[in-house]
């Protein structure tokens, strides 16, 4: 090894603490980069692979009922490649020893052979066989939630009729990667089941013999999806088609796509925060190294080393740190990707996980880190390169300090000598001090993002279930029913109060914009469904006109006072102009609201209702559930308490993962910044501090000067850090905003306190580590050396 390289390795060893701190920050950046992009790539690859091999459809069209012979006309639409007609039956499921209502959906598969589209990936058992009427394949998630396996039986209530089915297999389908009940957001594998039966037995159980109520199809290469959808809608309208939609709007696929967008966005924020901080740390550490090695640089140049040699010498040192960090980060990132995969596999039921870490990601992670290293050290290394030997042999001229602004403002008397030393030292290098403050502030900001999800979800829960949807149970009927049904429900033991609602799938149009959604007709005097304005105060539903979620208004570019065209997608499919009379706050989903009577009139129907909200005495809950299961017109029941519990459960592990990750990484940043600042301040000022010790200052007193500076920087960093954290959370909230859900910017005081406390703790620990070095100051050496 060349002597100059030996020097590099020894310098590195000498800097090991600081080098490690920087390496950890870079490794955090690389790890998050790899984790987000690796998970993204893997999920994308898995999805593509699964969709392709299991022939996920491209256009989906639900309808009321059409004869099977219509199939050929669908196939004849130009651009259509492959078609499958299916029976899709909503069911109530009866699970022994599980009193709570369980609903689900059974989709038909061909009697013989595999489905042409949306094929099943069998996890266990076998497919249904022709001629065996009672066979069913259940989704793997539902089976796992209830410990069902092939050979077990399951009872479903389909069109009011009980039917016991034999489970022959468990499966995963590209159609149900995100498995939620219609209108839901979070999966609940215990209370919502997805199943598949052969077409003939399902058709006869659901009164769809030789008929279908669902079409899926794929398109020929180059076909225009909207043309096909338009033709399909025209064809299916007489059969109760409620509008075909593309794969992009298919609920399961939408959720997954939304998640992929979030991953991509996250991969663009977090890694760059880490690498930015690392670049700053490199800057201060290498600048200090070059300055303490002035005379060595001069000697090297005097011996004939070129400027390039000297520059490369320091760059090499940086690159060793960067490459070590990159390797560490890649390893940790790969490991975290595995952890993310487990979480995603719980949330998205993919049959397998195609683990991908494309060389391009690895290469860009390394390149970006190298870039951060070069960028961070550019000025310091340039300083070393430009240093002229004769000039470098002389010691650096003493630094000229000034009174700080605060002192000149007349507050000087308030500060003791040591306090003035701290202030002036910070004021002497304002840029470095500011960057240190930003670095520490970023740590606080990242810590806040870790807790943000928890805060905002708690708030959304409070608004959605606490203020807005206050029923204990919601019951939906198989089809619109007369409002007299409410009396029947109210007569159940334990039902204390009830309200009815009408739910109509609609298409709303405003100008050239159009959205498919649902309009809910509720009783104006209702207690259980409250509409909230943007201040979360209850607003009264006007007797006529349409009220809609503010986000839906935004999507349609609608203001209060505008009119929209509302096309009902069921019944006689009336099209009416309706004035928008209000916008309301809602965080989950989007929809419209009308007075029940007004909606009934608009639909040209009598007092029809689609379901009811009930408040019940919880002691009678199981009895009520049991009675509801036996009511033929009840299609499904949702229990609010379960919904809340489920929501929390699903989010807990995801949130815990990110919040512990954010906490770890933010601590790395806080520690990296504070520790490096402390070490540099220590080398810059050890002579000063040793002199003070000689003059009779105690260790405590000189620690105050050294650590006081860090303490001050940390305290200065916390308020802007918390603001930065708020801004970062606002950015994240804004990023995930969609018609599926909106995340309000809610940060509890606890979160601010936690971020501030963690940063302080990291600062204290780094301070204590450096404090130990103060005990080893060379008091005698300082008297003999010139700075």
């Amino acid at each position, binding site marked *: 090894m060349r002597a100059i390289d030996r020097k590099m390795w020894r310098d590195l060893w000498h800097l090991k603490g600081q080098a490690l701190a920087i390496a950890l920050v870079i490794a955090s950046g690389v790890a998050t980069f790899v984790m987000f992009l690796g998970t993204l790539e893997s999920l994308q690859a898995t999805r593509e692979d699964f969709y392709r091999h299991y022939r996920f459809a491209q256009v989906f069209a639900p309808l009321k009922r059409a004869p099977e012979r219509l199939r050929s006309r669908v196939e004849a639409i130009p651009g259509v490649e492959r078609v499958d007609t299916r029976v899709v039956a909503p069911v109530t499921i009866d699970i022994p020893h599980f009193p709570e209502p369980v609903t689900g959906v059974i989709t038909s598969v061909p009697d013989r052979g595999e489905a042409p589209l949306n094929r099943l990936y069998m996890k266990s058992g076998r497919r249904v066989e022709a001629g065996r009427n009672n066979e069913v394949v259940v989704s793997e998630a539902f089976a796992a939630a209830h410990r069902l396996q092939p050979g077990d039986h399951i009872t479903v209530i389909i069109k009011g009729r009980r039917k016991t089915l034999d489970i022959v297999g468990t499966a995963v389908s590209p159609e149900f990667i995100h498995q939620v009940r219609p209108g839901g957001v979070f999966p609940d594998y215990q209370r919502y089941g997805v199943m598949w039966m052969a077409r003939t037995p399902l058709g006869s159980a659901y009164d769809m013999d030789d008929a279908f109520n669902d079409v899926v199809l794929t398109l020929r290469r180059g076909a225009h999806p909207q043309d096909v959808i338009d033709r399909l809608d025209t064809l299916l309208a007489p059969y109760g088609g409620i509008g075909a939609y593309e794969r992009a709007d298919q609920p399961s696929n939408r959720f997954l796509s939304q998640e992929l967008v979030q991953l991509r966005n996250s991969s663009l924020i977090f890694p760059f925060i880490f690498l930015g901080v690392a670049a700053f740390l490199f800057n201060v550490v290498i600048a200090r190294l070059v300055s303490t090695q002035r005379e060595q640089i001069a000697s090297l140049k005097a011996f004939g080393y070129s400027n390039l040699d000297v520059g490369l010498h320091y760059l090499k040192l940086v690159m060793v740190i960067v490459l070590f960090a990159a390797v560490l980060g890649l390893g940790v990132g790969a490991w975290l990707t595995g952890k993310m995969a487990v979480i995603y596999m719980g949330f998205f039921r993919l049959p397998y996980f195609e683990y991908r870490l494309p060389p391009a990601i690895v290469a860009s992670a390394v390149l970006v880190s190298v870039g951060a290293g070069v960028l961070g050290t550019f000025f310091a290394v340039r300083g070393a390169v430009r240093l002229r030997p004769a000039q470098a042999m002389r010691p650096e001229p003493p630094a000229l300090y000034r009174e700080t602004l605060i002192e000149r403002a007349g507050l000087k008397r308030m500060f003791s*000598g040591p306090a003035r*030393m701290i202030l002036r030292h910070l004021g002497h290098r304002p840029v470095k001090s500011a960057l240190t403050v930003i670095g520490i502030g970023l740590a606080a900001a990242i810590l806040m993002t870790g807790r943000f999800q928890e805060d905002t979800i708690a708030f959304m829960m409070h608004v959605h279930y606490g203020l807005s949807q206050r029923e204990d149970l919601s019951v939906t009927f198989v089809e619109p029913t007369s409002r007299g049904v409410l009396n029947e429900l109210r007569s159940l033991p334990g039902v204390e109060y009830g309200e009815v609602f009408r739910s109509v799938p609609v298409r709303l149009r405003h100008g050239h914009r159009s959205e498919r959604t649902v309009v809910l007709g509720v009783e104006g005097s209702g207690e259980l469904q409250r509409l909230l304005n943007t201040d979360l105060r209850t607003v009264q539903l006007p007797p006529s006109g349409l009220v809609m979620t503010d986000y839906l208004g935004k999507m349609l570019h609608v203001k209060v006072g505008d009119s929209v065209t509302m096309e009902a997608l069921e019944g006689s499919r009336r099209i009416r102009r309706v004035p928008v009379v209000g916008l309301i706050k809602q965080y989950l989903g989007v929809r419209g609201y009308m007075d029940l009577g007004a909606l009934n009139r608009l639909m040209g129907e009598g007092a029809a209702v689609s379901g009811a909200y009930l408040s019940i005495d919880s002691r009678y809950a199981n009895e009520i559930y049991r009675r509801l299961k036996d009511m033929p017109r009840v299609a499904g029941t949702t229990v609010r308490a379960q919904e809340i519990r489920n929501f929390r459960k699903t989010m807990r592990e995801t949130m815990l993962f990110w919040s512990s990750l954010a906490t770890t990484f933010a601590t790395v940043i806080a520690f990296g910044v504070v520790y490096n600042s402390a070490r540099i301040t220590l080398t810059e000022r050890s002579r000063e501090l040793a002199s003070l010790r000689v003059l009779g200052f105690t260790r405590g007193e000189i620690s105050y000067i050294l650590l006081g500076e860090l303490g001050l920087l940390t305290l200065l960093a916390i308020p802007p850090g918390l603001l930065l954290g708020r801004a970062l959370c606002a950015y994240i909230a804004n990023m995930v905003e969609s018609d599926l859900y909106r995340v309000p910017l809610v940060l509890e005081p606890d979160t601010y306190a936690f971020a501030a406390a963690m940063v302080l703790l990291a600062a204290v620990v780094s301070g204590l580590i450096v404090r130990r070095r103060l005990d080893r100051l060379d008091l005698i050496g300082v008297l003999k050396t010139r700075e």
Partner: protein
Amino acid sequence: MTRNEATAGKGEPGTAAVFHAEGLTKTYQMGEVEVLALRGVDFEIYEGEFVVLLGPSGSGKSTLLNILGGLDVPSSGTVRYRDHDLSVDDDSALTRYRREHVGFVFQFYNLIPSLTARENVALVTEIARRPMKPEDALRLVGLGERLDHFPAQLSGGEQQRVAIARAIAKNPQVLLCDEPTGALDVTTGVRVLEAIERVNRELRTTTVIITHNVDIARMADRVIHLMDGRVASVASNATRVAARELKW
């Protein structure tokens, strides 16, 4: 050399010894080599005395000054400041000793660059028991006009005089100066020595200067000559030469 010889000379009989050293040795571990810096040193220094410790580099004079200043402890032997044994003190007792009794002047001044002249002095007076005003201390060394200058705005000689003011401002019993003119030219060096002389004369501060400059020895009451870690000779000057008359 015997102890009697060492304590003889000018040593004003009847005045108490401020320092009393007996059989001092000091061994350093320099890497793998053992360096014997002091090989058995005995002497006494009296109240108000101006003593120059003279010797070439490596003679042990800095080591001796460090021990007197409470920066280091001897490997064997005892050293007492009045009736206080410095050779057995722990770090915090030595810190207290330095804080309460000793004023230091260093070869390279060791001022705090971020503090003005006045504040550098105040730094010490703020932790002292009976300090003088920083301004008075600076006036004493002839810097009454440059109170609010930062070290970078002062010449080397001025910086060293700030260091002297800082050392004496707490009214120490002893003033220890390590090559105080080592980094200065003759003219500036003389001005610095004048300041030290004045402090010794007017405040009666026991003053010890270490130097390898033989000329400076002429301004002392007594000159202790060190060679190879031992006291080679102790000489008393019949008359002290004023600093302004020195040349080298």
